[in-house]
């Protein structure tokens, strides 16, 4: 109990949070952000999320257009509809940001993630790991007599499921990329006009 007898859930926990009720209408959105590929750009985007208390569930970044020095950041975030709107507005006003697209609302899209999963073991476990990897269409990208490195891609749920199955079979390490996403169909994302 705090000295000021503040009701749990009330806005008064933080001097800066004046929202009267903590909102439980959390939504998950996948946002694609086209940015200048310049030094510090990732720090800017991450700094925005941490400074304003937004969630990052997943974040990936890589250059997608070498000639015009553009990188694409795919960020998956959760928040109330108001917070999601704020995140998009905050991103779109940044000097290094060319374009912001909320794939979750703008267009049907596909989301994929890639994982490298190392499993070590002998005998029956090894055979079982190999068999399951085929079910998941994982590829073996490295092998020794007592280990495999599998490359598996798909939805995050599929990768979670694969990892859970590997756990008892000698799971050693996992490396995941985080989610990348793109719209379906032939269309190109047009520059957004707010």
């Amino acid at each position, binding site marked *: 109990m705090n000295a*000021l*007898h*503040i009701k749990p859930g*009330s*806005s*008064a*926990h933080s*001097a*800066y949070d*004046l*929202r*009267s009720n903590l909102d439980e209408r959390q939504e998950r959105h996948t946002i694609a952000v086209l940015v*200048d590929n310049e*030094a*510090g750009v990732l*720090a*800017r985007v991450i*700094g925005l999320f941490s*400074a304003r208390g937004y969630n990052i569930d997943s974040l990936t970044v890589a250059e997608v257009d070498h000639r015009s020095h553009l990188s694409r950041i795919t960020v998956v975030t959760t928040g109330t509809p*108001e917070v999601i*709107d*704020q995140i998009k*507005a*905050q991103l*779109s*006003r*940044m*000097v*290094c940001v*060319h374009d912001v697209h909320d794939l979750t609302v703008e267009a049907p899209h596909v989301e994929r993630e890639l994982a490298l999963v190392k499993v070590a073991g002998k005998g029956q476990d090894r055979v079982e790991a190999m068999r399951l990897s085929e079910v998941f269409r994982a590829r073996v990208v490295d092998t020794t007599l007592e280990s495999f490195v599998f490359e598996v891609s798909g939805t995050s749920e599929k990768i979670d499921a694969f990892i859970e199955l590997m756990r008892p079979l000698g799971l050693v390490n996992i490396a995941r990329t985080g989610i990348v996403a793109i719209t379906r169909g032939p269309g190109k994302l047009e520059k957004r*006009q*707010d």
Partner: protein
Amino acid sequence: MAETLTGAEIVIRALRDQGVDTVFGYPGGAVLPIYDEIFKQNDIRHILVRHEQGAAHAAEGYARSTGRPGVVLVTSGPGATNAVTGLTDALMDSIPIVVLTGQVPTFMIGNDAFQEADTVGITRPCTKHNWLVKDTDQLGDIIHKAFHVATSGRPGPVLIDIPKDVQFATGTYHGPRPSDFWSYNPRRKGDPERIAQAVALIEAAERPVFYTGGGVINSGPEASRLLRELVEATGFPITSTLMGLGAYPASGRHWLGMLGMHGTYEANMAMHGCDVMICVGARFDDRITGRLDAFSPGSRKIHIDIDPSSINKVVRVDVPILGDVAEVLREMIALWRERGGRTRADAVAAWWQQIEAWKAVDCLRYKPSDRIIKPQYAIQRLEALTRGMDRYVCTEVGQHQMWAAQFMGFEEPNRWMTSGGLGTMGYGVPASIGVQIAHPDALVINVAGEASFLMTMQEMGTAVQYRLPVKQFILNNERLGMVRQWQELLHGERYAHSWSEALPDFVKLAEAFGCKGIRCDNPADLDDAIAEMLAHPGPVIFDCVVEKHENCFPMIPSGKAHNEMLLGEASTQGAIDAGGAVLV
């Protein structure tokens, strides 16, 4: 067209090509090549401040009083870190300043070199954008882009970190580019459909109010002119935030005074009771709204702002219009006139009657005294004796700042420089210097508290060196007055560390700096003392000894709504509860 120059030459050339006439700075090892170039020319005047924070605030004062970006030049490491408060201040108040910092040579970055700091890392969250220049060929374009970014869209501070080897090396320089050369170009025109919706709301409004802010000033003089035109034509009442004072004249018929935590009763009640709120270049800051769930509950809200993240951030509005204030107001006025320029005149007249009743409460009244100088009285006299002059007013932060906002009247934009968003004590002295540099013949006053003044008073050395006749008008209550007020109202009168035990003799201090000191502690002498200050051709430190325990009213306590204002001492008992005490 392209020329080959050294990095240091490029800096000076680019500044000149941007029309810069003044740089506020402080030298050090990592900027010596640039200082060498400054030495060799006469187009750009360098003002040597006494602390880099002062350089940044002076640049802010310059920018706010001219509408042109202020420029700062400081060295690496401590020079850069000292400028951080000024950068943050400029970011919060959307003031365009361009800060150039020296950096250790590129090949030493990351080695903990002498006076190395991760300047772009430290300043990333407190600039609109920043750059570390690693190649002299890019320096010129980055400087031009920096000016573009600082001044377009929502203005703000930018920083360019220039390693010393980049200053020495040669590279190609290209002059300024047209603004569409840059990818960053925020939209300026408002959506016509939304503007039409806004006009419809204006036509139907029965209890309208204009709520305006610093965005009007930032948009430029044309925005203030259009705002005045619309207010006069509709006859609607208008209030403004601390940042927006002067956009509409204080002598105007429709003026309600400032709103917010220490705003007038009539302004806050009008906000609470309006049916249509027209927010122009303001951002629903917590000093303005009070308790959010009780904020203007019955109104439809129009919000004009150039920053998409300001819209629907804290208050959901009915008609958001993204765009530049002047552009949107022009379209709005044109459409409204085209449709007949209608308002619900009868209803608005009834609304004005209600407002007159609120005005009759006379919320700024205070108990006068002929024995001690009441701080409100001091400001009233200062106002009366300087009204109509070519006058610029800066402030520090605290009670004196609020009294200045309440009791001084601003007739024009760009005449009022105060730290709003960050609330930076120490802002006013250097800001007044920046203003005076830009307006050498004008009267520049800094309404100060004695505690705030001590934070950046070394800049009086700058004022004396450059013969800047700034008037430092200190309301000396020997207290951190605003802190003391909160402790009285919220913390059971436990005055923990809210007074100074060893204040300097401000008259002797003035003399030590080589300027004039005046002390006044008697209301009967005040007018003469102020006249003496105004008549003196050089800088003055005026020690106005005032009542120590005066509180600033009206006040919306934290966590309360606009219609729950405290009007004076009698209304304070038990007015603030624990939930409010936790808020700042």
